[in-house]
């Protein structure tokens, strides 16, 4: 099993979610996040005084997937989150040693 983590623009969340549902992903965890990449934030102006906002609002998705689905899920997320502009985000994959469904105690792929 793998954990796919994606940090994306908040307004792409609905697109990504819809795409993943079509693909058959049954659950995900969404967290509000903030950060910056190459774009280094943005500038806001209040009464002429400029503020560098270096942490940009993002959402972080975490999806547990079976090994065979990893490439498809990553591709689905990447495609749905894409706008082509700077700050679209990143997707990465890490291995997961164990998964347990709290309600039933099922383990492994059954728990997804």
């Amino acid at each position, binding site marked *: 099993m793998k954990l796919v983590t994606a940090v994306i623009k908040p307004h792409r969340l609905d697109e990504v979610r819809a795409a993943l549902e079509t693909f058959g992903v049954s659950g995900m965890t969404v967290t509000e996040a903030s950060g910056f990449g190459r774009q280094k934030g943005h500038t*806001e*102006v*209040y*009464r*002429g*005084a*400029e*503020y*560098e*906002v270096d942490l940009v609002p993002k959402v972080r998705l975490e999806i547990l997937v079976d090994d065979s689905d990893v490439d498809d899920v990553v591709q689905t997320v990447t495609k749905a989150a894409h706008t082509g502009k700077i700050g679209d985000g990143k997707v990465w994959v890490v291995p997961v040693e164990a998964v347990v469904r709290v309600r039933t105690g099922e383990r492994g792929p059954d728990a997804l």
Partner: protein
Amino acid sequence: MPELSAGDTAWVLASAALVLLMTPGLALFYGGMVRAKGVLNMLMMNFAAIAIVSVLWVLYGYSIAFTEDIGGGFLGGLSEVGLFGLLKQDSLIATIPTTVFVAFQLMFAIITVALISGAIADRAKFSGWVLFVVLWATVVYFPVAHWVFYFNEGNGGWLGDRLGVLDFAGGTAVHINAGAAGLALALVLGRRIGWKKEPMRPHNLPLVLLGAGLLWFGWFGFNAGSAVAANGTAGVAFINTQVATAAALLGWLVLERLRDGKPTTLGAASGAIAGLVAITPACASVTPIGAIFIGLAAGVLCALAVGLKNRFNFDDSLDVVGIHLVGGLVGSLLIGLFASSASPAGVAGLFDGGGFAQLGKQFVGSFAVLIYSFVVTYILGTIVKKTIGFRVSADDERAGIDLAEHAETAYDFSSIGGGSRSHLLSRSAPEPESEPEAEEAPAVEKIDDKEEVAR
């Protein structure tokens, strides 16, 4: 002997209520501009001003401001302490009951004090502010109101009645006064921790706009109510207030568009306030076209002035100096240029062929109030600082003044960590026996069963 006019009385009563609304409006205007961790303290400083000044006004404030002089037009006497003499039905000022005038002028005293709070946002001890309000209203506002607003056939206040300074609704007594005091307090208290390094942007701009809107609405009572009658003067003051405010808003936005590339919401709100401030002294002495010029000048000049604090390194948190002091000066001084003999005040300024005489008077009036307010406020602020302290600890300031000073926070950002209420209740109530715990367990299971069924 003038008789009571029901129409005038009704209008001034309504105006008094409108002017009171300005202070909660100001609280929201200021509250939206501070960070989320300091909004309640901002609201509280203004509400405390309402409470304290109201009581002082009845005790001795009205008397010091609006009774016969005890020397040279600088201070009123103590003949109306407690207002006992004014409760009679036949006690009139012009055509309204004196008590109605007392109520109307009270609201001016309240908002003038409240305006100062914006300069010391996020760092003033609440107890220090409360003591300061008592001292400042007594030593600065009540006397200055006497200088400007007390008329008694040439034997009244030294600026308004004796010198002939035009200030219809409080450009000097309210705005220059509060602005100069704000500057003094900002210097006494010092800069906020992290100023210019950490972001201190407004936490809620819709709140700022709501506050500015309430101020604009209430300001019609402030200016048009100052006619103390439902008459043509009130009408002129009303229309001048509206167009000057509109012109200032536009002026501020145009400047922002040219300087920063974008017209901003905070700029619109600030421009409106700058225009309201500037037209306040002038609203009965200029034509509506003059009002538009005054508004435009205020919008542009105040927008430029708010940057001064960054250049001179004083932390006037919410630009009380840039908007009220500068806006008040713009309005008071431009009367000298734009005063029109066609207006209710009937005085000709420079552009109406009146020469420099009125401009000179406006200059004296403006700077007399500015210097008195700045110097005395600096002294009062220092007294508070050296006695009970005027600033919260560095840790409290970092963590948020709301929690430190009021044991409250404005917003519940997260449900995690809740449940403190039951904890508090159980602390005050006797400890329950262990039985309830045993009862709780099956209840939890029941909920779980239901969930299963639902699935």
